[in-house]
């Protein structure tokens, strides 16, 4: 009798362990297979520049922010016959882990290292002085102290401008005069998306109500929480919104799912990459547009500048005027209104419209 209980106990543990992991193994199986066939960093071994790519939380496969950086790097690797190494941030990792990741890349011989996400600002600032021959870049980054680093570039994107344009698109599409916004983390970076979006919506019709929700207050896990994104978006659809824009990285797939479940005529707006292209076929009919933040362009330009021997340093701004931000038209849902959106875009470029950066 006791023996059977014992065996049962062991069996249960094994079962829990394996089922608990089976989900993980599924994802890592797809990761592994995709990385085997697609991942250029595993196959490229050219003699050109070696690039280090340190991902933010969410990592490669978020179909948004990190994947955009990867796209730029893979283009550069092909063009300059280079190679690359990748590392990924973990939820709640130590600051020392970020620094270690960058140092490992530099030690491995990388000459251009890109930290994807502002969370790398401090670690790059700590590491860069030790590697004067390596060029660093931080997407959305900024120099945390007054001592300037002459081998670090900070990309800043006018995400408020692209958000403004998709806000216009949302306002021209909504039937209920109510639209939604889902932010990953309630920080200054994402608030700029909210501010631009709201301004764009209200530029078309000040009476449209904008529902705002954030997945996390400060924890960066808000960028890798599709379930949280789904809950937040579903709440806004339930309240009466029929267009929801997300700025939540990998959590965005949950927002798309919420739009699918909300039914026909319910829209979601993607962010950073053209997310229509990577969405599933059930999600695609619901993806109105995406606010583009051309991290790929920035990454490519940076590597190019390093390769040419004139590396970018200090702050590099990407906005509408240099096509660093924009909106996508895949799916053709905006064909009727894109002229109007482009009108707003040219007004922003000419300075007739100033888009706010904080709500």
């Amino acid at each position, binding site marked *: 009798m006791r023996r059977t209980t014992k065996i049962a106990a062991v069996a249960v543990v094994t079962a829990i362990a394996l089922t608990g992991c089976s989900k993980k193994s599924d994802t*890592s199986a797809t*990761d592994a297979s995709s*990385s085997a066939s697609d991942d250029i960093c595993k196959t490229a071994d050219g003699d050109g520049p070696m690039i280090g790519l340190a991902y933010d939380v969410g990592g490669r496969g978020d179909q948004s922010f990190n994947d955009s950086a990867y796209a730029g790097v893979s283009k550069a690797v092909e063009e300059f016959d280079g190679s690359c190494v*990748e590392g990924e941030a*973990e939820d709640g990792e130590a600051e*020392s882990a970020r620094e270690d990741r960058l140092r490992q890349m530099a030690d491995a011989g990388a000459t251009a290292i890109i930290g994807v996400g502002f969370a790398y600002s401090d670690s790059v600032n700590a590491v860069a002085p030790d590697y004067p021959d390596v060029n660093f870049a931080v997407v959305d980054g900024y120099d945390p102290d007054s001592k300037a680093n002459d081998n670090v570039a900070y990309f800043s994107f006018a995400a408020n401008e692209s958000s403004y344009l998709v806000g216009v698109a949302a306002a021209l599409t909504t039937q209920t005069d109510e639209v939604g916004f889902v932010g990953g983390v*309630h920080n200054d970076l994402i608030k700029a998306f909210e501010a631009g979006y709201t301004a764009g919506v209200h530029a078309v019709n000040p009476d449209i109500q904008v529902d705002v929700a954030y997945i996390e207050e400060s924890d960066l896990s808000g960028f890798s929480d599709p379930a949280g994104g789904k809950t937040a978006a579903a709440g806004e659809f339930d309240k009466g919104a029929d267009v929801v824009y997300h700025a939540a990285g990998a959590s965005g797939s949950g927002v798309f799912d919420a739009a699918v479940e909300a039914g026909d005529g319910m829209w979601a707006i993607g962010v950073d990459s053209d997310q229509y292209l990577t969405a599933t076929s059930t999600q695609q009919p619901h993806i109105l547009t995406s606010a583009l933040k051309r991290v790929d362009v920035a990454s490519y330009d940076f590597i190019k500048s390093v390769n040419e021997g004139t590396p970018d340093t200090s702050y590099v701004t990407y906005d509408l005027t240099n096509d660093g931000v924009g909106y996508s038209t895949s799916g053709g849902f905006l064909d009727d209104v894109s002229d109007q959106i482009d009108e707003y875009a040219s007004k922003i470029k000419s300075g007739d419209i100033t888009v706010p950066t904080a709500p």
Partner: protein
Amino acid sequence: MNALRSLFFGLLAPVIAVAIAVVATSVVIIASGSDSGVGSFWSIMLAVPQDRILVNIVNQSSMIYLSAVAVAIGFRMNLFNIGVEGQYLVASYAAATFVGAALLPGFVNIVLGLVIAIAVGAAWAGIAGLLKTYRGVSEVISTIMLNAIAGIVVSYFLDKYGVHGGNQVNTATAPESSWVPGWTPFTSADGAIWSLDLLAVLVGVGFWVLLSRTRLGFDLRATGASTTAAVASGVSVERMTLVAMLLSGGVAGLIWMPAYFGSAHVYGTTFQAGLGFTGIAVALLGRNQPLGMVFGALLFAFLSAQSNSLTLQTDISSSVVQITQGVAVLAVVVAYELVRRSRSRVEQRAVARATAPVNQEVAA
């Protein structure tokens, strides 16, 4: 002989647990069809750590250990303080705000900063303690909710009163006179072992003394073992609940202090979240024993630090070590039970053998 046997049984369960974790991790890696393979995974994980990784392991394990002790204080009297996460979050913010304000000169600022961290951590835990003693609210529920509230409250105040720069917001930087850098065993690029890591040693010794050498510790363990027996021997369970929560929260307040004074100097992007939950796992793994948790903390810190190389050198995600850690905790609970049973069977048999002839004589 007996000492040897109890050492054998003491080590048996953790060894079984780690073995199961190793097997489970390997199975997952094989099942996922990685090109790099299990071999490269373990050769990276078990490689001799680089100098800076060694430094990181020491720093991380001391913070994890503080968290584990905070959890264990509650566990020892059957109090599940899941709220260590929120307690050290609030405490870290409060201490960083105070130290950043630089109201007092260097050393006094440091000491008072630590006192504030302890006090705020204890106060935040005390809310759950009061709710439990006066309203009978389960501490599991209240501490989990207090975690969420802590995150929102701190973000609100940080946003409102913090220093905004670029895309980040921090508390004011601590004055340089209040930094506690530490000891640099290798080159400066490899980093320093923070002086305040010693807090973990102090707290560990203090925890051991408290449990085995004081009246309070005895009452704590008695309440944990049997509430009715504790009441019968004159222990006030309500008072013990509150005291345990306050102690647990006070230790929790210290968790991030080595990193704050050692390298961060601000509360903001560089704050390390999640240590409160790691502490729960390590307390389970170490069976709430002062020494056992040292090994648990070292193991967790080692796995996390080593896993950083995985995505750089293989196609295996570094999250895989979370499977190793999770399975180890799950397996250790089961393994202890199995070992306890087989041990009691061995002892029963020994007793039976020793007493058998006597019985026969009586029967005769």
